[in-house]
């Protein structure tokens, strides 16, 4: 199995890290406070090839392998998971178009999405529907030449800026996926501010009142909107979040090591206090384990191994849980400074909680992981004897 980066991947990591250190990291706290990211940031990411890392080069994408995509998400997650969130949903929309849209739609949208001229979002969640996503209430009614969509979508990352939104709606009782350009009459988008975390991800709520889209804007077939289109995009999303949380945890480790080295209490640096060391040790150990799981996913994805899908749920679950614990401990180590605006750990803490909820809550991941456990271990289970008392 893959155990280290290739020289090419290390070179890409260096380029990515340098770009993010210069262009994202210095602004992440300011964007968080303002609850928005300038559009020029995404145009610049497009110019660097970071906006559509997994898109095929024939459409203007970078065609990155899964490891390099992971490196990008880790480095970006270290700086701003809000940027990761927007990159992820843009990528989820790109993934859906690349896999399921017609050739004319691919040719029209994908090159623009690679450059950042068209930004994408992914709208599944509704005010009353979260984890039970197959049962979305938004309706798509077939009409002459297309479909008319009515309903509401909520908690949609990037909604405030996206030009093209993938919307999952019921087409004659079957979940189906539709591409809706932002300027379509009947679509209105309201910002959601004051979020706990992901504050600059430009989250919004969509109201669809008689939104008409052409027939070819249904992507995938009727009924494939959740089982294929959304499932495929969510798999990509979980992979990005898994790596972003590795980055977020690394940021917690870096901040905590630095703070514990320089902050003195009782005439000694914090790093000389054993209870601080315990938190640092756990943080570092969990980080290494989370990165190993994400690496395993990258390897399996590049092999197109079917196991990559269940392993991605495991990696997303574990790394977001680890990030949340690491961020909590980072705040604890920083004390009052960790709660104030001068250190980014309070942002890490707020963002990490969101990571445990998006792209399928961690409880949904746990259900899938445990059920899959019965499958993975079925042979061992068959060999085990049941005591007569049961």
């Amino acid at each position, binding site marked *: 199995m893959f155990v280290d980066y290739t020289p090419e991947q290390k070179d890409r990591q260096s380029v990515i890290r340098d770009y993010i250190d210069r262009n994202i990291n210095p602004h992440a706290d300011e964007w968080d406070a303002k609850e928005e990211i300038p559009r020029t940031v995404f145009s610049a990411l497009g110019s660097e090839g970071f906006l559509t890392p997994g898109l095929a080069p024939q459409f203007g994408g970078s065609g990155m392998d899964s490891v390099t995509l992971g490196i990008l998400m880790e480095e970006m997650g270290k700086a701003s998971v809000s940027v990761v969130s927007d990159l992820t949903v843009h990528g989820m929309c790109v993934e859906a178009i690349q896999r399921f849209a017609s050739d004319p739609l691919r040719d029209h949208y994908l090159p623009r999405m690679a450059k950042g001229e068209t930004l994408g979002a992914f709208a599944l969640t509704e005010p009353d529907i979260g984890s039970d996503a197959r049962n979305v209430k938004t309706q798509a009614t077939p009409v002459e030449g297309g479909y008319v969509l009515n309903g509401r979508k909520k908690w949609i990352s990037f909604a405030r800026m996206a030009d093209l939104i993938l919307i999952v709606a019921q087409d004659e009782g079957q979940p189906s996926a539709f591409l809706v350009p932002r300027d379509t009459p009947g679509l209105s988008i309201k910002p959601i501010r004051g979020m706990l975390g992901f504050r600059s991800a430009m989250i919004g709520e969509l109201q669809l009142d008689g939104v008409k889209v052409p027939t070819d804007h249904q992507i*995938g077939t009727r009924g494939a909107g959740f089982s294929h289109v959304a499932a495929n995009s969510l798999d990509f999303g979980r992979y990005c979040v898994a790596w972003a949380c590795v980055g977020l945890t690394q940021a917690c480790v870096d901040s905590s090591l630095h703070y514990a080295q320089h902050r003195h209490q009782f005439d000694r640096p914090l790093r000389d206090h054993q209870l601080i060391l315990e938190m640092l040790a756990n943080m570092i150990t969990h980080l290494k384990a989370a990165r190993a799981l994400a690496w395993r996913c990258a390897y399996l994805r590049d092999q*197109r191994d079917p196991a990559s899908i269940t392993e991605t749920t495991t990696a997303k679950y574990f790394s977001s849980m680890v990030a949340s614990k690491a961020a909590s401990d980072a705040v604890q180590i920083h004390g009052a400074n960790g709660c104030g605006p001068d250190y980014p750990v309070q942002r890490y803490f707020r963002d990490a909680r969101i990571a445990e909820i998006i792209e399928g809550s961690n409880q949904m991941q746990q259900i899938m992981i445990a059920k899959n456990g019965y499958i993975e271990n079925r042979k061992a289970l068959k060999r085990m004897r049941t005591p007569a008392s049961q």
Partner: protein
Amino acid sequence: MNPTSIASKVRSFLTSFVQDDDFEDSDNIFELGLVNSLMAMQLVLFLEKEFQCKFSNEELNLRNFRSVDAIVTLLSSKAA
């Protein structure tokens, strides 16, 4: 590849991913509860890799993946 060989590979994959491998080639694996949505994605990934093919939107209908027999029919039609 002949239908028997396809069926053998598909059955081998399915039995490695389901808890109960006591099913017939004609059984509906979704109705039996052997396959969930994640498993359906894994099945498509396996078939596209193993048989070096890409399913179209129309082919990605769960009806085409409901049983070993249905999968054999789908893959045979693509090879024809």
